């Protein structure tokens, strides 16, 4: 018997380990949830790990999945073993090439972490919508349902692809399998060797294009032969199922793990059978076991090879006793006769003479919706009905189409032998990392099997994480979250007030709380529902001030080690001493390479933990009267309370279909209702020190620092602590001035304090704005904030927008986003919203900004008091420029038509009004105000007009007021995937404004290299440091001569940023602003990140300029260089950022070489721009 080689890892790593070994070329592009496979491959390649043939695979990042697919096609044609990893929209972009690759009978395997497709909304979570969209490409579709299977099938797929010549798409469920950590038996190099036949590899090689034996492939064919040629491949597809089964059998002989194309599990005499594929197999498998033990005649048919669909094998796999089948699809095909798997099964049954069977189809698990034994039981129960429901849904409440099956959520089949633990952590506190480590310790140092699955919030800052851990003596198939936990840990005390943390605790379970209170004081601090649950469920309750222990051990906010020790100390999963030894061993192993100090502080934390862990004696009665905090503020709109509020409170699963918008349209201005209270400290304004420069408000990434200027009577009724002082600006003489912080929306990043330029005359450590503890200020400042919001906004016509101190009085229409603490992008969006938000349509590329801008529940895009504000939408990642251009073209056409109508109705409407409407330049706020007045008058007139065209004009009247189109996104979009479109849009001459928030990496997917990444930076897919220089997008755009281009960095020169935004908007043509956006992926101190921006500019790494084609008209050089000559070496800037410094840790020699080249880049760039900006310009007039 082959000896097992156990390891605990997630599905992505399990697949990547095999794929890396079996390929020579790996072409990738980041997309969730598959990115990690490419990242592993890149890291292994960078570390020189060889493949099965003892050569290091080449890993190449492309500009898009379409590009990756093209590169794969080429590499395959040139005869290399080639693979890729992708998901969702990425897979869709590969489809054109997939037809080609399959049509040419080319052996390859694509590994797909299956994910939802963007429809009414985008989702990063798992289902089979993407895979189902490829089922006509000719790729074989092989489904794995667990981490072990994903690992195994990666090999079987490769072996089969080589033998069949049919390309394979191997897929597994995004997140559920790609991110689940499980203990698996690892394949050895010997296993791989035994399964991969080099003769087939050489045959693949021999089919390659070569000038030494030239052929023509990729012809254009005519009606005479295309059809016949398309049918030539049939024998290969016909042979494929047999070959796959043979490979599975060979695999079984090697490893002992048996797989079938259609794998039946259940009662031999089952009458009811569920058919499905993916991770749902596992939950169905264990539910069937449970129900069989109850005497039920049920079974599950797991579909492994979905394409080519072997109808005979399918029918043969069913027990002869079967009477009814439920075919479950993890996808939706609106308007179809049924979802794909269902339709295939019906066909198979019909064609094999089983048309007497009852077959129903149903949908489940879209976007990682839970699929539990309770739901599976309900599906079996449905089959037991005399007329089972067809085309049902399970897991939701569809009160619109009445499609949903009801189920009993309390039904559970969790085994007594399995320990189930749930951990509530605060993002980035180390909880998830600690739990991953715990799984490894238990999985690899005991005979137990272990499983970990993790939930993450959609917010990037201050988010909740939930870890679900199972341990037990048998392989764990429970592919769903834990609802019967015998251990619950809450790592942040504030969660007790927001979520029903103990809802999933079993009676007699253990509850561990990290709180800043001792065992005596803690009870009375608990909210009522928590006290009730502890008493009613007879929980054992432990408390530790883990944050203090961590802090005192030098761990900062990282409570990982502390809470991990607590878990082992009280859960009893392992003997305590043995567990502590294992943790210490793991610490040594994990942190040794990072240094003695890191090991020492973690070991110190271990030693300090136990003496600070206390069991709480439970009183017999409830003492608290405090309930859970409502998810949204009182008085919020009903939709916000009922729908968005449920999502915020983690009750979104209970929302019924009827409660959700039919077309994905949601109200804006909703983030104001979600008070997150993240900040331990908030800024406090010192009105007597402040010089009213407005910089603090300008840089605030979350728009929590607000400024208002108003007349004194407005102060009537102000709370006692409300601060106001005389406005210093000479144009606002007699006005009052207030800077107010939104205390419950502030994230506490401190960037405002860092930027504040003034210091108290008597104490240099006191600025005009200073961080102070939030809790004692919360009530007072909440009242002040509420009063502040009632103060009138200053008439926009009175604001000189070219001066920051005045401009910052404009109301932000982008507020309280879920972006990272200290985000470098959001201040630009906020500025845009202040200046032009009331007249802008925003096309937002997928990425960070589409997530903090548009990820449910709430949106930061807001409305002003007149109800105007940015209208926002996200199309795709790759098409954002085109999406925005479409908006512009539509607005222009509507304006043209409205103009025609106005002219036709001029005499009726009044020639003066029409002339004024059509000739207004709308160049400033006063003009726009006047135009709005005219449009209001026009609408009044139209409303009473009998002219049949009046109705048409009325619907278009608003376009007569200036409308901006802002096309916004990150560098991944603008430099890479969307560059072709962006280039076309810029060249179109249309009046669109493009804002590229340049973080120089794919920030949203975790810091992968883009073409904007500067030379010498370490990024994912550039582990060894990026060797090529950054693309100069601005210079490319300038080469047209007709595009307004600006490069800005708010932290270096805020006035220049402001000027660029104003000029870009005013330019009657395409404009491009490239904005330096510091990012958490730079490895910097986010509080002082504006200093990094300054250093980037001071070193010449980031040049500031404005290129305004309008200047040509006045005989001036269009390029104004706003940067001064570099005054610090670029090395000094690079040393401020871990992305550069890391390279000196990993590859010091390369780091030195690239730093030298980076300086040369700077020097050459400066010389070129200096020349361009100082050229004598001929007056062309």
């Amino acid at each position, binding site marked *: 018997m082959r000896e097992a080689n156990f390891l605990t890892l997630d599905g992505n790593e399990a697949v990547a380990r095999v794929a890396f070994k079996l390929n020579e070329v790996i072409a990738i592009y980041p997309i969730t949830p598959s990115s990690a496979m490419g990242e592993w491959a*890149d890291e292994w390649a960078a570390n020189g790990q060889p493949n099965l043939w003892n050569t290091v695979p080449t890993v190449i990042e492309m500009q898009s999945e379409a590009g990756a697919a093209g590169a794969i096609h080429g590499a395959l044609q040139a005869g290399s073993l080639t693979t890729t990893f992708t998901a969702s929209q990425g897979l869709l972009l590969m489809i054109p090439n997939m037809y080609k690759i399959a049509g040419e009978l080319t052996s390859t395997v694509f590994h797909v972490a299956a994910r939802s497709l963007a429809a009414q909304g985008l989702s990063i979570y798992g289902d089979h919508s993407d895979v189902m969209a490829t089922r006509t490409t000719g790729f074989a579709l092989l489904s794995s349902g667990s981490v072990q299977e994903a690992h195994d099938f990666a090999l079987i797929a490769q072996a089969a692809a080589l033998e069949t010549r049919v390309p394979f798409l191997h897929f597994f469920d995004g997140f559920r399998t790609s991110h689940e950590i499980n203990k698996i038996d690892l394949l050895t190099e010997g296993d791989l060797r035994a399964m991969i036949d080099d003769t087939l590899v050489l045959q693949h090689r021999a089919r390659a294009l070569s000038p030494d034996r030239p052929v023509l492939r990729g012809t254009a064919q005519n009606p005479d032969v295309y059809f016949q040629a398309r049918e030539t491949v049939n024998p290969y597809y016909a042979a494929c199922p047999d070959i796959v089964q043979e490979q599975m059998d060979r695999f079984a002989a090697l490893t002992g793990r048996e797989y079938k194309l259609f794998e039946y599990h259940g009662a031999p005499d089952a009458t009811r059978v569920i058919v499905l594929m993916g991770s749902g197999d596992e939950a169905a498998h264990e539910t069937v076991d449970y129900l069989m033990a109850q005497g039920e005649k049920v079974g599950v048919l797991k579909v492994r090879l979905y394409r080519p669909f072997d109808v005979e094998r399918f029918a043969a796999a069913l027990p002869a006793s079967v009477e009814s089948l439920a075919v479950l699809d993890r996808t939706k095909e609106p308007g179809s006769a049924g979802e794909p798997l269902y339709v295939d099964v019906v066909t198979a049954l019909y064609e094999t003479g089983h048309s007497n069977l009852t077959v129903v189809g149903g949908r489940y698990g879209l976007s990682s919706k839970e699929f539990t034994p309770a739901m599976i039981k309900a599906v079996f129960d449905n089959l037991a009905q005399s007329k089972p429901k067809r085309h049902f849904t399970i897991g939701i409440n569809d009160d619109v189409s009445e499609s949903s099956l009801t189920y009993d959520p309390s039904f559970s089949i969790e085994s007594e032998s399995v320990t189930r633990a749930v951990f509530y952590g605060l993002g980035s506190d*180390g*909880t998830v990392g600690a739990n991953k480590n715990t799984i490894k310790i238990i999985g690899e140092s005991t005979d137990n099997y272990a499983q970990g699955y993790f939930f993450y919030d959609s917010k990037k800052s201050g988010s909740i994480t939930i870890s679900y851990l199972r341990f037990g003596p048998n392989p764990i198939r429970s592919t769903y979250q834990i609802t019967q936990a015998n251990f619950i840990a809450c790592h942040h005390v504030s969660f007790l007030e927001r979520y029903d943390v103990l809802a999933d605790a079993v009676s007699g379970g253990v509850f561990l709380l990290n709180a800043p209170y001792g065992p005596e004081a803690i009870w009375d601090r608990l909210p009522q529902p928590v006290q009730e649950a502890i008493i009613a469920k007879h929980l054992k309750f432990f408390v530790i001030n883990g944050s203090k222990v961590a802090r005192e051990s030098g761990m900062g906010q990282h409570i990982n080690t502390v809470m991990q020790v607590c878990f082992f100390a009280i859960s009893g999963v392992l003997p305590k001493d043995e567990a502590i030894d294992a943790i210490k061993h793991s610490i040594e192993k994990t942190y040794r390479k*990072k*240094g*003695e100090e890191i090991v020492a502080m973690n070991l110190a934390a271990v030693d300090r933990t136990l003496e600070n862990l206390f069991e709480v004696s439970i009183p017999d009665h409830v003492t608290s009267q405090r309930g859970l905090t409502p998810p949204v503020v009182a008085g919020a709109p009903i939709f916000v309370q009922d729908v968005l509020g449920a999502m915020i409170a983690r009750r979104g699963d209970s929302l019924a279909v009827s409660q959700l918008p039919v077309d994905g349209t949601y109200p804006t201005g909703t983030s104001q209702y979600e008070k997150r209270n993240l900040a331990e400290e908030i800024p406090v304004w010192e009105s007597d020190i402040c010089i009213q420069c407005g910089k603090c408000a300008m840089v605030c990434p979350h728009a929590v620092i607000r400024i208002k200027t108003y007349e004194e009577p407005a102060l009537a009724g102000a709370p006692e602590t409300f601060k106001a002082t005389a406005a210093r600006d000479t144009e606002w003489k007699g006005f009052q001035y207030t800077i107010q912080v939104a205390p419950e929306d502030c994230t506490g990043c401190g960037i405002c304090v860092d930027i504040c330029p003034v210091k108290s005359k008597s104490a240099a450590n006191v600025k005009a704005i200073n961080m102070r503890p939030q809790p004692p200020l919360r009530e007072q400042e909440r009242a002040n904030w509420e009063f502040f919001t009632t103060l009138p906004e200053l008439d926009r016509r009175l604001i000189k927008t070219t001066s920051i101190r005045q401009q910052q009085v404009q109301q932000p229409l982008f507020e309280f986003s879920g972006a990272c603490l200290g985000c470098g992008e959001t201040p630009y969006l906020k500025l845009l919203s202040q200046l032009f938000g009331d007249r802008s349509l925003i096309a937002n590329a997928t990425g960070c900004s589409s997530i903090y801008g548009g990820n449910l529940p709430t949106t930061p895009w807001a409305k002003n008091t007149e109800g105007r504000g940015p209208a926002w939408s996200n199309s795709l990642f790759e098409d954002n420029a085109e999406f925005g251009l479409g908006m512009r073209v539509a607005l222009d056409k509507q304006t043209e038509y409205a103009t025609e109508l106005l002219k036709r109705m001029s005499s009726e409407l009044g020639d003066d009004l029409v002339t004024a409407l059509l000739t207004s330049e709308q160049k400033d706020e006063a003009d726009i105000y006047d135009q709005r007045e005219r449009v209001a008058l026009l609408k009044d007139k139209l409303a009473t007009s009998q002219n049949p065209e009046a109705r048409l004009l009325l619907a278009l009247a608003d376009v007569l007021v200036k409308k901006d189109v802002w096309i916004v996104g990150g560098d991944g979009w603008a430099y890479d995937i969307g560059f072709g479109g962006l280039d076309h849009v810029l060249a179109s001459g249309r009046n669109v404004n493009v804002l590229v928030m340049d973080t120089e990496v794919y920030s949203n997917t*975790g*810091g992968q290299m883009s073409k904007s990444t500067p030379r010498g930076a370490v990024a*994912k897919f550039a582990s060894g440091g990026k060797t090529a220089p950054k693309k100069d997008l601005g210079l490319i755009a300038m080469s047209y001569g007709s595009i307004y281009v600006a490069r800005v960095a708010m932290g270096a020169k805020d006035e220049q940023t402001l000027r660029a935004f104003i000029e870009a908007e005013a330019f009657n043509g395409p404009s491009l602003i490239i904005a330096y956006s510091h990012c958490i992926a730079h490895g910097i101190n986010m509080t002082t990140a504006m200093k990094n921006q300054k250093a980037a500019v001071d070193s010449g790494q980031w040049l500031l300029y404005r290129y305004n084609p309008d200047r040509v008209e006045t005989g001036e050089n269009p390029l104004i260089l706003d940067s001064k000559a570099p005054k610090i070496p670029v090395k000094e800037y690079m040393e401020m950022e871990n992305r550069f410094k890391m390279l000196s840790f990993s590859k010091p020699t390369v780091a030195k070489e690239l730093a030298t080249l980076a300086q040369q880049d700077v020097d050459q760039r400066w010389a070129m721009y200096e020349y361009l900006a100082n050229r004598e310009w001929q007056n062309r007039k």
Partner: protein
Amino acid sequence: MDISTTYLHKTLRSPLVVSANPLTEHIDNIKRMEDAGAGAVVLYSLFEEQLRQEQYNLHYHLTHGTESYAEALTYFPEPIHYHTTSDAYLEHIHKAKEAVSIPIIASLNGSTAGGWTKFAQNIEQAGADGLELNLYSVPTDPSLRPEEIEGGYLVTARIVKDAVKIPVAIKLSPFFTNVGYFAHQLDQLNVDALVLFNRFYQPDIDIETRDVYPNLILSTSHDLRLPLRWIAILHGRLKGDLAATSGIHTAEDVVKMIMVGANVTMMASALLRHGIDHLQLVEKNLRQWMEEHEYESVSQMRGSLSQQHSEDPSSFERAQYMRALTTFKMPTQSYSGEAFWGLPE
């Protein structure tokens, strides 16, 4: 003429030793120092805080924001091996040893007995001929008793001394209530040399921005008085060697220090100001001076004017202070207060 000397149990060709400074960051410079006649080179200092902070920073940036948001569970690829500053330092020792034949002395700068002292062993393994430990702290806690501070220094010195077999020199600050007592305490730990004295880089203040900022001012020959006095006092009373540092710029400075008892005289500011070849000039002038004054060897000169051998031992004590004051002459007009303050004359 024999200008060789002994230091840290080694014979050096010259008493001119390069003390820790940024020039030693480059192997080429170290070669030039050897070529210019340096007796030994003390490498640039690795700071305790630097070792710690580097590890903390790297760890912080590799973990900050991770495992929090589903699409970006990490932000950086993790290398399988890190070449930290300390690795680079060890590599530097190794390269320096390969490049030159004069002794290479590594330098650690710290104040507490932390895990970093293990690093001393790594330095030894990398081939350093000696280790200079720079004990330096600025105690700002008024409740911290002097004996705690000095005790801490001694613990650190002992740990490092015990950890390695190569000679250990301790570089001290002059700010002890009794420098002699503390020197004796160290001597009892068998430290191999004392380096007198460390020059503190005192912060300065920018009155426009109201910021405090570090401001390095190179030494001048005036700065040698303090080590001169204490080397004179300590010479002949300790088992270990004495190295003079601070304010050594000329051959005359070297002569003075050797006369009061220094085994070696260390230079940094002079080289930063005049270049590495300045060593040649100083050696030339030293030889010339010795020839003119008929000295045969440096060892003949060493300690000839120490307190023990001084005609007037009290001249190194408080009485000298009084004498200095009473013989002080007002500076000439160009140094008058009015001129200095820019007032009308």
